[in-house]
């Protein structure tokens, strides 16, 4: 049996990396998907790929840090599919730069996408889910929400924020049938990681390899489906053992 039959899922950062692979798996499991991204470069061909396999999918261009854009995402979703059952709140940016060289504008940019954007998109999802009686939110945090690293102050602060945002929302809606959990990826083989840096990251991961987007998608499916019905305010760390070191 398909695990997400007839569910409507919004996926931010949905045309690349972890988001795109999750969209493929969600469609295979019966969901209708709304792909959200500020980059529409591959959007059309990706929507065609998903609908070509008999799935239902639309693309909405939006910056998750813009209130107006996010409101439009929900308007388009409701107009097209009538409801929101699942939010995979995944759009994110990362930038490595020594703190003494980081401008405040750069810091704000990262935090506004990675933390404020996560909040904004979740807040409107909650409003829709309260109308229909419930839903599931999966936020993409990072193992760098748990541990620190040099040169990544803004990203790490934002991702730590996403983890505690997840706990707080999970507790707030626990009796109202909205579950909120976070995925904490380790080093995953996606375009966010520069090619020439990948070997270094394999070496420092206990499993001596990078994770794959497929492996992330399967973890997201678990958190988005009824298989995790007693889990909320929780995190699932998928990092090949990195943060246990």
């Amino acid at each position, binding site marked *: 049996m398909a695990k997400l039959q007839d569910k409507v899922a919004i996926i931010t950062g949905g045309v690349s990396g972890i988001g795109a692979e999750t969209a493929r798996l969600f469609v295979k499991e019966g969901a209708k998907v709304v792909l959200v991204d500020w980059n529409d470069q591959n959007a059309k061909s990706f929507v065609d790929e998903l609908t070509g396999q008999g799935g239902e999918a639309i693309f909405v261009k939006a910056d998750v840090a813009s209130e107006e854009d996010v409101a439009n995402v929900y308007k388009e979703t409701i107009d097209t599919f009538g409801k929101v059952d699942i939010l995979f709140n995944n759009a994110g940016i990362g930038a490595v730069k020594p703190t003494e060289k980081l401008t405040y504008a750069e810091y704000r940019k990262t935090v506004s996408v990675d933390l404020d954007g996560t909040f904004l998109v979740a807040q409107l999802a909650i409003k829709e889910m309260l109308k229909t009686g419930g839903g599931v939110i999966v936020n993409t945090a990072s193992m760098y929400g748990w541990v620190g690293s040099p040169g990544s102050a803004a990203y790490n602060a934002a991702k730590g924020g996403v983890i505690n945002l997840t706990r707080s929302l999970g507790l707030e809606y626990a009796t109202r049938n909205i579950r909120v959990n976070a995925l904490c990826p380790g080093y995953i083989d996606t375009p966010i990681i520069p090619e020439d840096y990948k070997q270094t990251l394999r070496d420092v991961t*206990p*499993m001596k390899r990078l994770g794959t987007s497929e*492996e992330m998608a399967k973890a997201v499916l678990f958190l988005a489906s009824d298989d995790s019905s007693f*889990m909320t305010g929780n995190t699932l760390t998928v990092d090949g053992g990195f943060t246990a070191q």
Partner: protein
Amino acid sequence: MSKRFDEQVVIITGAGSGLGEAAALQIAKEGAKLTLVDLNTEGLEKTKEKILKVAPEAEVLLVTANVANEKEVKNYVDKTVEIFGRIDGFFNNAGIEGKQNLTEDFGSEEFDRVISVNLNGVFYGMQYVLKVMRKQGSGSILNCASVGGIRGVGNQSGYSASKHGVIGLTRNSAIEYGQYGININAIAPGAIMTAMVEGSLKQMGGDNWEEVGKEFVKPNPMKRFGRPEEVGYLVAFLLSNEATFINATVVPIDGGQSYKY
């Protein structure tokens, strides 16, 4: 349709009741061959009956063993390899709660008893199973810790020490074995309605235990006990090929309770 555990061999300890039984049912439905281990032979037979109802073709080996006895642990591992030829998954789950009282009253005998089952038992299992998995170059181990292994609960000195120990052991060995294609994780259940929790509520409330149970779950954000099958789904996921990059983590399954202040 292919199932997640087709052709796979999974060992589950404490399979005669509660979470072990629920995991066995789920994993059997998904195609695994199973070795079920418990002290309680009758419990094992009941679990097998239930399995054959939902998965009539399942191959199930029952081994009565005390996980606190190293020889008996070696025996259930050896038997599994003899009969099924390999080990793909191991749910290292058998455990006991022990007395509930103040630390000063707990007593060294009770402490040794709880540690010997909950911590030594888990270590013995890992030791023998890891030898097999390292040769294969693959496998998944899932240890059963508890919210009492990541938070202070009170009145459970032996239990809490043993479950914190299980988590330390999980992280240590996961770091060692990741490079051999083996992942090792732990789950931390909150209050799930099983025989163990019923017993625990009876320690607190006697005949009045059901009322005590209602009070007990009030602080839970979801205002309810978890169901064993909900843990079964999580166990199946973490032991399956869907979780291959998840290593050295501890996954609470508690309705959000361990993060509540």
